[in-house]
């Protein structure tokens, strides 16, 4: 029943809100795909990566190149963006396999800077420091930039992106759910919890990390392709370390190693600042830009967001999913007590 409710809300939301929120929710769903990928690597396999922005960028620019310069349909360039990021993940993987914990995090930061350098200098591919237009999603005669008419109903640009991202997110969640329930998933958890013990039980540790790295990169590539296309224009600075950190925050806030954690985390990290931006203009005690001695609405929103983030992690380290589990346990306990009492009397 909860599933039906979630599906109904997810499908209906673009019709109930205005353009500002439609855009925001499209970004949320796109980010959720990327966060789901990072969670495979960090949440399930325990490998901390700050290089996610690199793979998002690979997806965005490979997708953009194939879409704009080669004129391919999105049905081809979105998978190709994922594949390209996956291949680069496989190339970068072996270097990362030799490292653990913070060392891995630092090396993956290196990826972000390598990517930045390449984007700055390879102007034919990325447009260089001046940035590059990234093509809209097109399927045959459908062009998301102009909106799509289906059976007489006109879907706006943000609705189109939202539904496409939602479809890909659902597919990605089904895939990740299957992976985490498979032998590979158990290997990933074993590597995360006790790497040595995993090895002496017969888990191929290097192969397991490698597969997690590739799955993570592919999902980042797909998310990056959609993100870039939805932005429609990107400069190299868009794919910096801050973007990587935002994805780490998403999986931590949402709750690691859970299917819904990355989705809820994306909602928090992308949605909450948008909400705060929206309301901060009305909070005059926070913002007083006319006289010049108050915070700008944007600054006020960022400060509130930062404080909420800190409070959140102090109060519930298990993330949003952790809160849900806690409530679930208490409800279950209450029902069990009520049931036991009825049976006993």
């Amino acid at each position, binding site marked *: 029943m909860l599933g039906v409710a979630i599906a109904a809300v997810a499908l209906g939301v673009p019709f109930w809100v205005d353009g500002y929120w439609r855009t925001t929710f499209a970004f949320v769903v796109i980010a959720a795909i990327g966060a789901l990928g990072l969670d495979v690597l960090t949440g399930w396999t325990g490998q901390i990566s700050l290089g996610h922005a690199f793979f998002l960028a690979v997806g965005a620019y490979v997708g953009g190149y194939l879409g704009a310069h080669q004129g391919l349909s999105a049905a081809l360039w979105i998978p190709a963006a994922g594949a390209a990021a996956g291949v680069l993940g496989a190339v970068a993987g072996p270097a990362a396999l030799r490292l653990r914990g913070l060392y891995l995090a630092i090396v993956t930061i290196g990826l972000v800077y390598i990517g930045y350098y390449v984007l700055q200098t390879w102007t034919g591919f990325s447009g260089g420091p001046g940035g590059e237009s990234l093509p809209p999603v097109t399927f045959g005669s459908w062009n998301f930039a102009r909106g799509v008419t289906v059976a007489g109903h006109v879907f706006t640009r943000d609705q189109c992106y939202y539904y496409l991202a939602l479809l890909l997110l659902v597919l990605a969640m089904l895939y990740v759910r299957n992976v985490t329930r498979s*032998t590979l998933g*158990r*290997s990933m958890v*074993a590597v995360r*919890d*006790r*790497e*040595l*013990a995993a*090895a*002496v*039980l*017969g*888990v*191929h*540790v290097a192969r397991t990390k490698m597969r997690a790295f590739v799955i993570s990169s592919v999902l980042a590539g797909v998310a990056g392709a959609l993100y870039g296309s939805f932005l429609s224009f990107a400069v190299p600075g868009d794919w910096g370390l801050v973007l990587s950190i935002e994805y780490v925050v998403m999986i931590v806030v949402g709750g690691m190693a859970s299917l819904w954690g990355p989705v809820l985390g994306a909602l928090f990290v992308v949605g909450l600042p948008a909400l705060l931006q929206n309301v901060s203009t009305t909070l005059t005690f926070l913002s007083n830009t006319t006289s010049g001695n108050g915070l700008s609405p944007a600054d006020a929103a960022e400060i509130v967001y930062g404080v909420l983030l800190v409070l959140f992690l102090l109060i519930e380290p298990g993330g949003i999913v952790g809160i849900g589990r806690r409530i679930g346990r208490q409800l279950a306990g209450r029902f069990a007590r009520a049931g036991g009492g009825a049976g006993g009397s």
Partner: protein
Amino acid sequence: MTEEPVLELRSVRVVYGGVLAVDDISLAVEPGHAVCLLGPNGAGKTTILRAVSGLLGFHGGRVVAGNVRYRGRDVTGAAADRLVRLGICQVLERRHVFADLTVADNLRAGAFARRDRRAVAGSQDMVLDLFPVLRERLRQQAGLLSGGEQQMVAIGRALMGGPELLLLDEPSLGLAPLVVADIAEALREVRTRTGLSVLLVEQSSAMAGAVTERSYLLESGRIRAGGQTADLLADDQVRSVYLGASA
């Protein structure tokens, strides 16, 4: 008739990033026999186990000379996961149980590399016979068990892999004498039941004496003596120099 040893090390030298850990180690474990590596801290006992189980790479080490033979096959430098499938299972020092998993799931994890479900079920029955206390604790989180019970989980988990050669790294570490005796008894029992071979690293003479027939004495990365475990343990010099107060 001379039978081929299950495990044979020939002049093995192990280096950790340029630092020599053990050198010229030659030893053998005959089928169904149990051998102990005795010696003080830093003598290289654990390094030898790692060289056999393929874990050296995780610690930045490498066999640079000599070779390790398992059932007549050269397995020097083979990957840990492959060695498990060949029948070499290791109980790690400090146990390394999956603290968040139940006892039952920890045991199941031990059978990760096996496909024969009936054989796995048989192994689990045997483990629960050997350690009856685990039967009562099957649904409990392994991290909440006592040290002795966690050690039983760790040994049980290794036995779930269906080993022909069981490597144990200081199973008595941090345990009360009575618990050590229980575990030693269980290890004797599993040897008679399955006929597996054992290579044990110990500083506890009680465990060494109860479980193994032959021992090698290590010091500073080299084998200093070898012989019957009882004889070695009875030697006054060995007792005072290598086994300290625990003897």
